């Protein structure tokens, strides 16, 4: 669990060409969602909060921003977990899209409240790619977890 979170954290800052950069899915967020659904007691809100704090430090934004967004959305994912587990892949992806959008919205809101809004449209692209990559990521993680 910790290892997957670390890898996701690394993926979140790996340099990409600027053209692709806006499409980068929030890997760490997806991993946190996975663990919130799979085993909320081992890796629930605590993991979400810690991962959010790590993102805050690495991205150099106001401390607590990603932590807040990630905790809220992980709690929502945990709440929905029993339903999510029996959903079809498409429904899962759609739900994850809603969660990711909520995450971006909280970030957007904190950005605005602390006085440095990023108003480009491209920040709403990450939830789309995130939802698209979710089946792959969740499938891979559950494979690894089964071992």
């Amino acid at each position, binding site marked *: 669990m910790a290892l997957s979170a*670390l890898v996701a*954290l*690394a993926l979140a*800052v*790996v*340099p*990409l060409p600027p053209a692709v*950069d*806006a499409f*980068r899915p929030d890997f760490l967020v997806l991993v946190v969602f996975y663990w919130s*659904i*799979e*085993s*909320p*007691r081992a890796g*629930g*809100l605590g993991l*979400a*909060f810690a991962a*959010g*704090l*790590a993102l805050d*430090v*690495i*991205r*150099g*934004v*106001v*401390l*607590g*921003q990603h*932590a*807040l967004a990630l*905790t*809220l959305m992980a*709690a929502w994912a*945990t*709440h929905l977990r*029993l339903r*999510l*587990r029996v959903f079809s*892949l498409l429904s*899962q992806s759609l739900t994850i899209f809603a969660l990711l959008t909520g995450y971006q919205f909280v970030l957007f809101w*904190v950005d605005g409240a*602390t006085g*440095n809004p*990023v108003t*480009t449209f*491209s*920040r709403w692209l990450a939830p789309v790619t995130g939802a698209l990559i979710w*089946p792959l990521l*969740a*499938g891979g993680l*559950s494979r690894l*977890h*089964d071992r």
Partner: protein
Amino acid sequence: MVAFRNTDASGRTSGLLLRCVLYCLLALGLIIFDKRYDHLGQIRRFLSVVAYPVQVAVASPFEGWDWFRQSVSSRETLRADKAKLEAELRLANFRLQRYEALEAETQRLRALRANTAVVAARFVVGDIMDLDIDAFRERVLVDKGARDGVFVGQAVLDAGGVFGQVARVEQLTSEVILVSDASHAIPVQVNRNGLRTIAVGTGDMSRLKLPYLSTSADVVAGDLLVTSGLGGGFPAGYPVGTVAEVKRDPAQSLADVEVRPAAALDRSREVMFVWPKPDAPPQPDALAAAQGPAHAPSTAPPGAAAAAPQTAAVPPPHHGAPKK
């Protein structure tokens, strides 16, 4: 199909709501404290030291690849590089000879006017770490931090000109905000005629703009912009960019001026941190009183007089430096 194992399907996550509220309150508290009171510097510094290995681990494969490519580059390439560098060095030395004479002359003239010249005293070269900090803000992480005496607001240059300034200092790294960031502004001066204005970033690394010039302002494409030193943040006289295009719409009161930054914002691998000169020995007032007025009108535009107190107010060299 993603198979979630129903390990704890029955086990209720007790008090999910309560824990969620607690964590959210904690996060909100952090945001408010960090934003309002700035008390979290120590915590942030500690956390950043913990995060440093991750950053290094991510950046190192790319650096390793660069190193590998360099170490296997062929003899001819190295020779060609050497010849090119030698030619450049010759040219630079040639220019330097004139520069030294000019600097001495400038110092002399400034001494007459009792101005302290804000010339950089110390440089430290830092490597830009190969990381994407934030897709939507023009910032880079550099591998020099509080340990090396870097402070917030410090000017950062590259080989071409002004690169940006330090936005945040950690123990081992610092975050530099580029001049092209949409929230960055830098006081500049047109080198040709001394016209002062402010260059603002656009969020695009290849462009700055000058939004505060009237349509009648004397600025043309090709003008060199240098730092004016006003405000004390940047040392005066370093190139910021060249004017690329001036659009004058008679219906508007302000001109639309586009600037190409002088620094290679998207290509530089190394940047220089600049420390302002500790204290240029203040010139005796008597000298200024005796000779200043006579020279003042001819040596500088009237605005420069107003610049003097502000440029003198540059922070001391190790302002806000190592707090260990």
